[in-house]
């Protein structure tokens, strides 16, 4: 079963999405800040990372940069899951190629799960 790393500092979001994914049979690992996210990515080698952009310790832009520049983690698929509109962050992430980018306030849980399935296919 696919392993998903969810890097997000908001507890309610962590719990609700993790629960929804676990019930669909996914194995979910949660990380509550950028540093913990990077460590977990290296240790757990997930199939997919869900990444928020505004995070404590190391922000999501920096996490993205480090994941993409390390040979160990550069091939892991990533979905950016944030409330920052893409237009505000696009300049900072465009160099990492086309990324899946979801503004989380605009999506219901089942739509997020569907998107995750699509990316994992």
């Amino acid at each position, binding site marked *: 079963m696919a392993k998903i790393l969810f890097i997000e500092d*908001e507890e*309610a*979001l962590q719990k*609700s*999405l993790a*629960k*929804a994914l676990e*019930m669909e049979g996914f194995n979910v690992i949660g990380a509550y800040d950028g540093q913990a996210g990077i460590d977990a990515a290296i240790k757990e080698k997930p199939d997919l990372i869900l990444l928020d952009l505004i995070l404590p310790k190391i922000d999501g832009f920096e996490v993205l940069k480090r994941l993409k520049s390390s040979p160990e983690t550069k091939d892991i698929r990533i979905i950016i899951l944030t*409330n*920052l*509109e893409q*237009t*505000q962050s*696009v300049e900072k992430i465009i160099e990492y190629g086309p990324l899946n980018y979801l503004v*989380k*306030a*605009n999506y*219901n*849980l*089942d739509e997020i799960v569907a998107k995750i399935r699509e990316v994992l296919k």
Partner: protein
Amino acid sequence: MSLSLFKQCKQYNVPLLQCPSFLFVVMGLINITSIFTVFFIAQRYTEEPELVVGIVIGVSLVIFIISYVIVGTFTQLAETNRMKTEFLNIVSHQILTPLTSEKWLVNLLLGQKLGALNNEQKEYLELLKSSNTKSVQLVNALLNVSRIESNKMVFEKKPIDLKQLAQEVVSDEKPAIEASKIFLQILDQTNGKNQVIGDAMKIKLVAQNFISNAIKYTKENGQIMVILKGDGGFLKFSVIDNGVGIPSEEKPFIFQKFFRSSNVMRFQTLGSGLGLYVSKYIIDMLGGKIGFESEENKGSDFWFTLPIAKL
């Protein structure tokens, strides 16, 4: 005139001696009086040009100081405006986080995988869900205003199937349509040429505004028609209802920011007064036109056009 001048200064929240419109009048008066004074003095003391020159320099100095104060206040007002836009942007983003938490938690409970819900629990959670959706829409509208004001709204220009987009919006609005027992129909009169160039998310927002307004202002058992048809190199998207219509004295203000029709109060509907303002900006930026025809108690026809995609 002078009364409205004082009122305006009070609204700006600046002291009278820093209020641009007031100082402008003072400057004009000083100008006129001093020109006349100089004229008379110059006539009488023709053999003392130093005096005249002195007065002219003095008056110029006074005007210069007043102008300096005016410019200073304008700068301050512009800065305040910029801070307001930034504040709006920060607060809106902060509010989105808890709103997203609420949305997902409600989704989880309504999914009933944690346990079955009885009908009453389900009903209340559905109400919570719809109030959450409204909050998110309102915050998104505020974010759009702050983007418009700081010129930070970015547009994609891709081919979009307008008919499919209309169907998506209608399906999102289904609960409201059913609750008001409205008959809604999509008529495609484009002969298959229903692709336009634009930004899907933003055009969807405009279509959503038109359709949800039509639902709000149409009485029970009303009719709404969404019509797509070619119009030269453009595609016209119209939402026609047989609802309450718009009073003619309010027509000039429909696309203004924060304008809320008196109908809003009368029919007790929600609305921020931002939807059509944002819609007009979006359609203008995508190179289309936006407008409406409306008659009170007969109904309204809100439409926009966008350039047809050349396939």
